[in-house]
């Protein structure tokens, strides 16, 4: 039985001068997380993994559809880390090489991120997100009740149905840039993500479920705690609490997720069978999927419950969304959709196009990234109204990029700029931006990208 975890070797698949340095920063962050997990394990005298006695297995199987009613004592568990801890790590990423030509202009960057990655400016964003322009119809704008549906909505729905009928994944991805009709969204996302729910997929999910029934993992308690702290208290998602356990407990045992580490510059934490530390043949990944959940992790799954109510389908969709997109939001890399690039993109947009606001907030000790970071790490889940969130995630799929999160974050600041200019503390700035539930995402994005004089 694995008794403690150590770091594994790094895979340096990201090219570039700063890779080694990122790896160091990531390495020490990983060490910290693992240390935290190990000490929780020791303090609470709970093994990382154990086989359940038969009686307990039976009980869990009976309760499978209502694990939310279980009230295990979670008071001693704490989330391994929260987004703000991760932000501190990113802030401390430093470029040791200041002589590089690129960083000359970078010296004037006054944000928190000090890594000179290349990010798009507004002209480049306008080109990249051309379908969001003012002259193109959008769901989220042109389907509002005041607009007659003949002008855009009806035709758009018709095209969507055609795309689905032809099962054309590439066409679906192009189509969804203008938003998905609510009735077609579940199928369109499945088409774009290439999820088809074959019998073998359902069987695979059932096998994961069996794994959950038979073995108890320490991370299970972390998952329970996270769901209880976040989704259970959410106005939109509390209803789906039980589905979240059914997805996340299986997810942590899914070794196929390890595959994404091939293109992720992070590496999965490894554990060694007791007494065999360092001997590779006794190494296992812990948790089996290599992903340690953090505070708010369950919010990646929650919005999907509005679309899929069949557990194995819900599971497949979430897993694919994770290995394509979400993992980039909590690992360090130089990828344009990685969280570091998103933070830098956000700060650069603000500093370049809203300089007065940016300087003012800096002056009062309210660095904008400190407020927007948590939005981006969660892909805005739990901050926006669900219908708006789904329109946003439509575009993530359509453009195969998370950059829209940074653009939206900047657009939100632009929208509330007048109020923000009047605040005099970080707390007051947080208050102005505390409630995003009334925001309409598409108009904000459109105005910021296409209607602001730059």
């Amino acid at each position: 039985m694995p008794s403690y975890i150590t770091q594994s070797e790094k895979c340096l698949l990201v090219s570039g001068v700063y890779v080694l340095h990122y790896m160091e920063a990531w390495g020490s962050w990983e060490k910290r997380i693992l240390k935290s997990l190990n000490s929780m394990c020791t303090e609470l005298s709970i093994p990382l993994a154990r086989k359940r006695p038969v009686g307990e297995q039976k009980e869990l199987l009976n309760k499978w559809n209502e694990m939310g009613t279980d009230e295990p004592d979670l008071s001693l568990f704490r989330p391994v880390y929260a987004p703000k801890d991760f932000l501190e790590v990113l802030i401390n990423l430093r470029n040791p090489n200041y002589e590089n030509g690129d960083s000359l202009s970078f010296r004037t960057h006054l944000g928190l991120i000090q890594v000179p990655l290349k990010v798009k400016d507004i002209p480049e964003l306008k080109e990249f997100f051309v379908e969001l322009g003012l002259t193109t119809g959008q769901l989220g704008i042109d389907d509002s009740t005041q607009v007659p549906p003949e002008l855009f909505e009806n035709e758009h729905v018709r095209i969507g149905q055609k795309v689905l009928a032809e099962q054309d994944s590439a066409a679906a991805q192009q189509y969804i840039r203008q938003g998905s009709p609510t009735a077609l969204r579940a199928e369109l996302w499945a088409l774009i993500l290439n999820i088809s729910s074959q019998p073998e997929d359902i069987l695979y999910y059932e096998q994961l479920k069996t794994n959950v029934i038979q073995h108890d993992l320490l991370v299970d308690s972390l998952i329970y705690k996270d769901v209880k702290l976040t989704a259970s208290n959410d106005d939109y998602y509390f209803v789906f609490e039980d589905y979240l356990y059914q997805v996340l407990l299986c997810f942590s045992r899914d070794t196929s997720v390890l595959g994404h580490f091939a293109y992720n510059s992070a590496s999965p934490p490894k554990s060694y069978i007791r007494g065999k530390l360092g001997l590779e043949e006794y190494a296992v990944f812990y948790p089996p999927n290599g992903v340690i959940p953090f505070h708010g992790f369950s919010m990646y799954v929650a919005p999907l419950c509005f679309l899929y109510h069949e557990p194995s389908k819900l599971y497949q969709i979430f897993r694919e969304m994770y290995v394509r997109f979400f993992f980039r939001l909590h690992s360090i890399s130089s990828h344009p959709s990685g969280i570091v690039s998103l933070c830098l993109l956000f700060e650069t947009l603000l500093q370049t196009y809203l300089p007065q606001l940016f300087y003012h907030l800096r002056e009062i000790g309210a660095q904008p990234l400190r407020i927007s970071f948590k939005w981006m790490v969660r892909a805005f889940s739990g901050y926006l109204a669900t219908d708006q969130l789904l329109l946003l995630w439509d575009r993530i799929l359509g453009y195969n990029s998370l950059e829209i999160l940074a653009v939206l974050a900047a657009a939100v600041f632009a929208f509330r700029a007048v109020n923000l200019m009047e605040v005099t503390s970080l707390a007051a700035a947080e208050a102005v931006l505390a409630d995003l539930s009334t925001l309409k995402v598409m108009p904000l994005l459109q105005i910021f990208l296409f209607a602001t004089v730059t």
Partner: protein
Amino acid sequence: MAGKVKWVTDIEKSVLINNFEKRGWVQVTENEDWNFYWMSVQTIRNVFSVETGYRLSDDQIVNHFPNHYELTRKDLMVKNIKRYRKELEKEGSPLAEKDENGKYLYLDFVPVTYMLPADYNLFVEEFRKSPSSTWIMKPCGKAQGKGIFLINKLSQIKKWSRDSKTSSFVTQSTKEAYVISLYINNPLLIGGRKFDLRLYVLVSTYRPLRCYMYKLGFCRFCTVKYTPSTSELDNMFVHLTNVAIQKHGEDYNHIHGGKWTVNNLRLYLESTRGKEVTGKLFDEIHWVIVQSLKAVAPVMNNDKHCFECYGYDIIIDDKLKPWLIEVNASPSLTSSTANDRILKYNLINDTLNIAVPNGEIPDCKWNKSPPKEVLGNYEIL
């Protein structure tokens, strides 16, 4: 002379009082000259009772119709709807069309219901047709889920049998009267949970019928997973969605209060079931509300001094058919969460805007046709 509206209430709720105060209205006692009285149902009984001979003047408005119980008492509601259906059938109206099993196609929106002890024998006949069915017993005159229980065996309601040795004329009084309805054991479940819909409907006059539905209704979820299993029949947390009952369950959450907005419901249904069937469901819900009001309109005392805001309780089954469970004359104005408080405050605000135009001293002779701008979150049914 434009004086300030003088108001009285015997329901001490902040959502009401804040609305009166923000209009600059003046609080008075019921013995003084008042223009607007937000009454409890007990008070309305006294005001319009034959003994007191109360006469309201043209500048006085109250928030209940004198015989609202034709709609809001469970037994009378069913009686009126049954009568309405038979009348339509007699006229040969297409609305009263039936299918090959004798079920009304368009007017079957109340679960099969009998009065006890009056219809005991009829009920037994029906019960024996499907002996594995579950029925729900509800006291006619109570609210908030009080006194409700489920049965699946005749022995559980022997007390109400007309031949029972324990029966006497006392049990025939309105206090002990119950209705027994076929329990909807295939409710639509979301996240494995049962829920019902609470919708607010404002009626300003019954003849002609002018009614408005509040767009911001909500779903009330049970905290415990739904199971039709017989062993759980006694567990009220599984079956009853009244907040008054759910509030005492272990898992009740005070942040969201186990409530969803109707918009959330709509988004979920459109995403998982499709737009057409969802649209059809909501159209049917409007239809049910209007039909229920039409059913009682002929017997309602359409007093020009009255308006009323009802709380409609509707359950949706897994075939997306809405069922009218009951109508409340005094929907709760207590707030269980912050969102709730805001919703109820706005509800009262929009209600007052329609019932008391411009917030000025009312004139009961007005035509009760408010301009579109004041509707707020109400939509015309």
